[in-house]
């Protein structure tokens, strides 16, 4: 009965109800998007870093991985020292450099990683074999740029001197495979070679040096404890756990998180105000009716319930529409932010997390309930005789 009366009351002013639902839907969509933005970056980045079980990154002291061109010297000794630390199960050395694929009129420039194929976590092989001493695996973008395919031979060089037009190292390598590079975007031209090959081509400057180590720890070991042990064992490095890296990324991108929080809060307030206004006006228009209902014996609780149900109805309809609208707008906004240059493919700014999403929408519905309470209380507290007289005369 209460539900029927509430539904009839909302249907009486169909256009007004529709507009209110639309307003709440836009607010709900915005709220949902902002929740997705706030949680998406963190989870997406943590999931990217946690791939292949590497929990710690070790880079030259005071730097973040690949943030500068600094390298770690005496890499073999450093790797041994890290491997000795309790809980460390694997150490993957990585040396980054720029390579030039020669042959065409203009050499093709690409980012190259020197890795140990047995423990690497930088790429996923899509086709072919891991790199050996005289082979490399390449990204599709590099293969496309060079017109090469698996099995072809490339003339690659490192350390270009623009004045002398010479290279510190140059060798002919066979493309042994195609790979997707985990931390690079699909458009990046990239290749992976054996670490020793990249070090040798880099000349004396790169001998026994790496850009970073990726460290895998046992599942029962706290990565933070291993991180501290690494920094204690090697004072010339900075060790960063996945949690620390996520915190650093969050600091750098805190703008987006705070924007999400502010806009989410504004959406919630707008939704609340909209439902409050609609229900209040609706109650004001029906003061006479409510007084009659009370006069013929309808209980105060019944009136309150009916009005609160109206608020919930508006909020629920708005939240349901907002859920659909929000998912679509999130995809649109995500496609815009995915345009950041060099963003890894695996990173998404908007991630639909059912728990967070439904909690946010539940908050909106709760605000709808709260929005109905004041007008309901006001309507139920009306003096019956006075209101009837005023409405009849007025």
């Amino acid at each position, binding site marked *: 009965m209460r539900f029927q009366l509430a539904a009839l009351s909302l249907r009486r002013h169909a256009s007004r109800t529709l507009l209110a639902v639309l307003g709440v839907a836009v607010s709900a969509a915005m709220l949902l998007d902002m929740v997705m933005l706030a949680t998406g970056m963190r989870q997406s980045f943590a999931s990217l870093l946690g791939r292949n079980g590497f929990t710690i990154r070790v880079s030259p002291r005071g730097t973040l991985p690949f943030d500068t061109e600094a390298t770690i010297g005496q890499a073999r000794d450093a790797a041994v020292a890290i491997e000795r630390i309790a809980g460390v199960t694997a150490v993957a050395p990585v040396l980054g450099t720029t390579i030039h694929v020669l042959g065409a009129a203009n050499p093709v420039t690409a980012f190259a990683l020197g890795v140990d194929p047995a423990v690497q976590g930088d790429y996923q092989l899509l086709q072919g074999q891991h790199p050996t001493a005289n082979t490399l695996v390449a990204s599709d973008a590099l293969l496309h740029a060079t017109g090469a395919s698996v099995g072809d031979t490339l003339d690659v060089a490192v350390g270009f001197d623009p004045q002398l037009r010479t290279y510190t190292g140059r060798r002919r390598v066979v493309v042994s495979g195609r790979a997707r590079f985990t931390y690079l975007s699909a458009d990046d031209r990239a290749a992976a070679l054996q670490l020793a090959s990249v070090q040798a081509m880099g000349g004396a400057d790169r001998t026994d040096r790496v850009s970073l180590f990726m460290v895998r720890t046992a599942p029962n070991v706290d990565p933070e404890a291993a991180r501290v042990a690494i920094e204690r064992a090697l004072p010339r490095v900075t060790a960063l756990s996945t949690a620390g890296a996520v915190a650093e990324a969050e600091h750098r991108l805190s703008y987006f998180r705070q924007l999400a929080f502010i806009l989410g809060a504004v959406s919630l307030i707008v939704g609340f105000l909209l439902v409050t206004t609609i229900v209040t006006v609706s109650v004001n228009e029906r003061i006479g009716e409510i007084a009659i209902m009370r006069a013929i014996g309808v209980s105060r609780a019944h009136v309150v319930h009916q009005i609160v149900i109206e608020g919930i109805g508006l909020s629920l309809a708005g939240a349901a529409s907002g859920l659909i609208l929000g998912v679509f707008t999130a995809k649109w*906004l995500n496609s815009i932010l995915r345009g950041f240059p060099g963003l890894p493919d695996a990173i998404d700014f908007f991630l639909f997390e059912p728990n967070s999403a439904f909690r946010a929408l539940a908050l909106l519905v709760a605000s709808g309930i709260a929005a109905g309470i004041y007008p309901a209380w006001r309507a139920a507290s009306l003096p019956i005789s006075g209101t009837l007289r005023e409405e009849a005369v007025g």
Partner: protein
Amino acid sequence: MPSPAWAQRIDSIPPWSAAVRTIAIDERLAADAGLHVGDMVVLVAEPGRTSGDTVRISAIVQRRADPSEVARSEYRIRMHLGQLQDILGYGDRVDRYAIATAGGAAADSALRRINSVAFGFHAYPSREIAVETSKTFAVVSRFHRAIGMITIVASATFLLCIMLLKVDERRRDVAAMRLMGISRATVIRTVMLESSFVALLGSVFGVGLGFVVSAFVNAHYQAVYRTPLRFAIITTGTVTYSVLLSLVLGIGAGALAARRLARTPPLTLFGR
């Protein structure tokens, strides 16, 4: 080597001694490491090296208001080119030259000449580099525009709803006016005038709120990122756009509701 002219000197002393070379450090490094003008420090190419160059801090400089540096947390040191080349063992080499020209045609002519005679390197116009390095900000700008569009749709719906309700509340007044013989056109104009006044008042309040919020946003993010960069700027264009949008929406909603009321028979409006 970046020019010290890019940064604003906020504290300095004259060179102390010809024997000890001097450097400038950014205020972030000075604050975090507790360094002051006159302090002696040792510069090394990488951590762990025992030999280095002992220098005196002669200036503390403020970071540039450069968006590309906002999220980067590293420290900055300004030193003489030769000094850096010595420390790094870089030889007589530089990463790039920045070339000042008289501008316009002179810049294009210099560019052509350098590229035709230079062996081994290439000159780029600054605008080309600016386009390349500002891609990140172009994405952020597109994102802001998209968020702005969603916000406008949300606020337009809200405004439309409120205006319709506000006019709807006046049904008895409108009925009385119509029964007194006031024409439909006058009723519509009156209601529209009212709604535009409400929209204008709301806009003025909104602009004021915008100024307060932008001041807060600037203060907050300047502290978070330790930069003099201004994150929110309210321009005349922004104010004009928002006030006009609000007025159009307010008047439109008022007109819509007023027309509906004016067409309804007065006695129906009275509920009779």
